[in-house]
């Protein structure tokens, strides 16, 4: 039937803005939140000593003091509270931040193929972290190891530098070329990787061990002190990101269009870059290079709830938390009692997915 420009028929409720869509969004968010909780509990029970979910839940609910005072629970209590809880919390936060960072970068570049690790942001952060590990003792007084506080700051500066360099290279007169972006990302990653390799060559045994951990990615070194340092920052990034939803939605139409719609485009872009650099920098500082979380998660979420950033950002954060902690559980279990670096697990999941995306949309570089 041919639609005409006559008045809409009374009673034809437009489906696209149906409250069904909104309800579906809330259901997805709720389901993801539930999944985060379950994955978190499962992660607390997984490892060299396996604990059933019920026991984990009982320990967590009882609280640290009560558990440590109870001889029947003290061993499991120490495992849950002092070893696995900081690791799980850091995993959740880093996963959420990486996925959010991916969604933000994809919005900024207006392309679904952007990922902090893929386009060199994480490598830049890792290089700066490596510089700090290997050469840091030249800059601080005394001869002890570099204080951990220096790492997130260095990683943030490295991530910011890489993001700004990438954006400057890939954007000409307000248009970001995706091909240029991906290729520049490859070059930046290679350059940062070479720098990190050079530092590895110069480093002593202890530094080398630290560096290897960084380049492969791992949440195994998580401690409460690391958590208390980067946790609040990552949380702040996660809370701030959704405030950019409207700007990101408008940017999808184009930068000029976003300006026409009342968005302060330059300020929004700077804020986006800052959030990504802070979030990814701090994530890299505690867990090293973990790739593909930022690529896979927002893409899956878009398939489920659509591209509206108001829903995409919080849903990606929850999805990223689930994916990273689940990957960490796999990393702990497959070669037990040893552990795989988690970066290997996420790359094994993410890289084939990325290839599949490329095969499915062979025009993606022309966008």
């Amino acid at each position: 039937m041919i639609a005409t420009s006559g008045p809409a028929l009374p009673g034809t409720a437009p489906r696209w803005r149906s409250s069904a869509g909104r309800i579906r969004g809330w259901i997805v968010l709720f389901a993801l939140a539930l999944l985060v909780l379950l994955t978190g509990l499962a992660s607390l029970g997984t490892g060299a000593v396996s604990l059933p979910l019920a026991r984990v839940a009982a320990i967590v609910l009882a609280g640290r003091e009560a558990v440590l005072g109870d001889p029947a629970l003290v061993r499991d209590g120490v495992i849950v509270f002092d070893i696995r809880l900081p690791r799980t919390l850091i995993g959740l936060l880093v996963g959420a931040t990486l996925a959010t960072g991916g969604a933000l970068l994809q919005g900024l570049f207006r392309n679904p193929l952007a990922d902090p690790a893929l386009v060199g942001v994480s490598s830049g952060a890792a290089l700066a972290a490596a510089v700090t590990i290997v050469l840091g003792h030249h800059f601080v007084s005394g001869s002890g190891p570099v204080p951990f506080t220096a790492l997130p700051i260095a990683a943030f500066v490295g991530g910011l530098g890489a993001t700004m360099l990438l954006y400057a290279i890939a954007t000409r007169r307000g248009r970001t070329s995706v091909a240029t972006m991906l290729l520049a990302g490859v070059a930046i990653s290679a350059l940062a990787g070479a720098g990190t390799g050079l530092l590895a060559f110069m480093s002593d045994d202890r530094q080398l061990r630290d560096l290897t951990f960084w380049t492969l990615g791992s949440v195994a070194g998580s401690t409460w002190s690391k958590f208390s340092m980067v946790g609040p920052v990552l949380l702040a990034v996660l809370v701030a990101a959704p405030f950019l939803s409207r700007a990101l939605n408008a940017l999808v139409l184009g930068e000029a269009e976003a300006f026409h719609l009342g968005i302060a485009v330059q300020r929004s872009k700077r804020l986006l870059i800052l959030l990504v650099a802070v979030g990814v920098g701090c994530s890299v500082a505690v867990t090293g290079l973990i790739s593909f979380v930022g690529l896979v998660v927002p893409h899956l979420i878009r398939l489920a709830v659509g591209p509206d950033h108001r829903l995409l950002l919080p849903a990606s954060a929850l999805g990223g938390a689930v994916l990273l902690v689940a990957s960490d559980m796999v990393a702990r279990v497959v070669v037990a009692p040893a552990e795989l670096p988690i970066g290997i697990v996420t790359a094994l999941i993410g890289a084939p997915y990325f290839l599949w995306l490329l095969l499915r949309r062979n025009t993606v570089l022309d966008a």
Partner: protein
Amino acid sequence: MTAPLEGHGLTFRVGAKTLLEDVSLSVGSGRLTVIIGPNGAGKSTLVKLLSGETAPASGRVLYGGEDVRSIEPWRLACLRVVLPQASRLAFPFTAGEVVRIGIDGIGRGLGRRDRDAILEEALRRADVAHLATRAYQSLSGGEQQRTQFARVLAQLAAGRSVSREQVLLLDEPIASLDLKHQIALLDAAAEFAADGVAVLAVLHDLNLAAAYADDVLVMSRGRAAAFGPPREIITDSMVSEVFDVALKVGASPGPGQPFLIPPRRRTASASPAP
């Protein structure tokens, strides 16, 4: 009284090349002004300067007497609405969502019901209500253009809650539309003008310019060559000087509306037998 939109002595250069030189114009409330001119005359550049998107090398753009650069982005978005030349999207938004982006955050004191009503009306007037659930990327060029027009209609309606002295800028709005939708879009623009909106449109079709314009601005080599009502502006000499085309301008009986018809160049005997 100040006009809703004024440009004074607008000049714009890229490198050593001057794309626009000393162009001034004023679009009054309720006027529909059409910019015509050959390719590369500076029409789109002028629209970009007027919208505030690009800053001129010299000259000023005023909205209701206020310099465009001193108006906060959110308020500017309520005062002036721009329909760009066709654009592509990277993410699979539906047509309805694209229109919705046009009203999110625009205007003051609008509840969800108000916005839904604005949205519905805009979709209906741009004749895209039946496309609302379709992915924007899957639409034809003309359908995408109509969706963008619906977004513009929605922004205009939402912006009314802040200012009634509004400006609508249309850059080649009908380039990819069929005849029916060309007329429907220009009718809608004329209705807005009748409602007090200052409308400025870039058009290539001189016949449609003659049919809809209150005033015509002729751009030629980066300068404003002529300005006035179509009957006085669209003449044999202007068409030959500015467009470099030797065509006789006719006048319709009655209102004397100017029109151009390219004469048939091939004789009947030159065409193959049916």
